[in-house]
């Protein structure tokens, strides 16, 4: 990551219009930020250009300028963060939240005789299933199929919501981030691609599935559970990065090859 050619690739993918290099050189640009060897400039005609060592490496439709960085919009819920440290590809908050949801109650399935490319989410909560669908739509401009699973019980009909999206591109895009699997319960936050905003969004998504807040012993506590200890360790690091003070990992249930673990986070303020 961070090489000129990689950025050119994004630039190529997201360049606006059909302008040639000569035509662009005739345009007027305002330098909006210089970060190390990178320079971000805004065209008077619209759009942004990223230069490395004076050489244009990409053009972008949107940019967010902050004190210590510039965030350039790529596609599929990705952004390019330019800072003094260089460049890195980061997830937009929407995509980060989607990854958190998939890590807790969803999954990615690529396989089968007929080669199925499926990204799914299972929840009893209709609202949460709706959040998954709307995030898929916002990030990938794709409408998910909202399946429901109903079961007749002696207490009446019970429903589970199972939105799914079938797309090779989306399945591989998420698979490449390494967020889920290969074991069904295994997850890894894409920490290298998350800024603080992304981390908060990821935790929000994960918490919606596998977390809870409760008041015990006179205090409010935020709990996150998982059967994947390694993933939970990585979540713990994220909490620390965001200034929280999570507990150690508590093992609540243990069997050979299976355990259910938990971390607790103390909430200072009343909710």
């Amino acid at each position, binding site marked *: 990551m961070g090489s000129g050619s990689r950025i050119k690739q994004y630039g190529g993918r997201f360049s606006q219009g059909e302008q040639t290099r000569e035509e662009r050189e005739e345009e007027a640009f305002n330098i909006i930020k210089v970060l190390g060897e990178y320079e971000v400039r805004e065209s008077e005609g619209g759009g942004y250009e990223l230069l490395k060592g004076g050489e244009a490496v990409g053009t972008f439709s949107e940019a967010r300028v902050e004190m210590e960085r510039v965030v350039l919009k790529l596609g599929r819920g990705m952004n390019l963060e330019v800072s003094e440290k260089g460049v890195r590809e980061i997830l937009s908050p929407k995509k980060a939240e989607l990854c958190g949801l998939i890590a807790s*109650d*969803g*999954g990615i*399935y690529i396989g089968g005789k007929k080669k199925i490319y499926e990204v*799914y989410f*299972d929840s*009893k*909560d209709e609202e949460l299933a709706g959040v998954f669908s709307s995030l898929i739509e916002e990030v990938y401009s794709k409408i998910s199929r909202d399946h429901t*699973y109903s*079961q007749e*019980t*002696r*207490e009446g009909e*019970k429903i*589970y919501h199972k939105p799914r999206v079938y797309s090779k591109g989306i399945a591989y895009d998420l698979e490449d981030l390494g967020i889920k699997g290969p074991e*069904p*319960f295994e997850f890894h936050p894409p920490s290298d691609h998350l800024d603080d905003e992304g981390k908060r969004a990821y935790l929000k998504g994960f918490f919606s*599935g*596998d977390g*809870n807040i*409760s008041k*015990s*012993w*006179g*205090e409010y506590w935020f*709990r996150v*559970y998982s*059967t994947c200890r390694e993933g939970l360790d990585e979540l713990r690091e994220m909490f620390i990065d965001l200034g929280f003070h999570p*507990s*150690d990992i*508590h*093992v*609540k*249930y*243990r*069997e*050979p090859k*299976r355990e*259910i673990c*938990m971390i*607790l986070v*103390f909430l200072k303020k009343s909710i």
Partner: protein
Amino acid sequence: MKKELEATIWSWGEEFEDVGKNCEKYISKRWDENIKECGVWILARERNEGIIYNVVLFVSDPKNISDLAQRLFYATLFQGNTKIDFVLARLSDSISASRISCHDSMETVERELKKLGEKVIEKFSGDPKIRQMMIGREVVFIPEIDLLCELESQLTNKIVVEVIHDFFPHIRDLLDSLTSRLIKEGLAKRVLGYKLEGGVNDLKVEDTEVRGKKVFVWLTRTRKVTD
């Protein structure tokens, strides 16, 4: 020699209706004349309160197992805000169910818990590290509670529910609701009794947290479920 075979027949993300099919496949492959019993273990979490629990049914007739596994799965899945992590099938050449026996009433359990709380204070207040943290602060000991509940069933050898949490009222509420569901769904006939697992000597300090004028001390069981 005691023989036990085990397989994960379902895990989160698989289709719900596959529990019975997967169980059937496993049973047909592994059951032989030496097998006396199959235990179907459902490992679950009630997410609103973060309660870990498992529901186990023990069956000796291989013909009924997959159907019962599927029914038990649904009964558990639709219990409150439950997430099922795994379903396991364990085959044994002995009757494991006979080793589990729960005869106490809920009132007895509550009395035992009260005594346990007193013993916890007595034992762990003497811990030098905790004593140090206690200076000028209130200590809150949070022992992990592991409660078993045995149910009589006309369809199975027995059903056992194990609930793990640190707040007893949540455990009691979950057990009340889950056992009623198992009875309503025809899987169990009645609750036979309860049993509190472990004593003060099975607890060790897992974590501590100093928050202002309070010290929280989490105590976990040194022996977990299958040890």
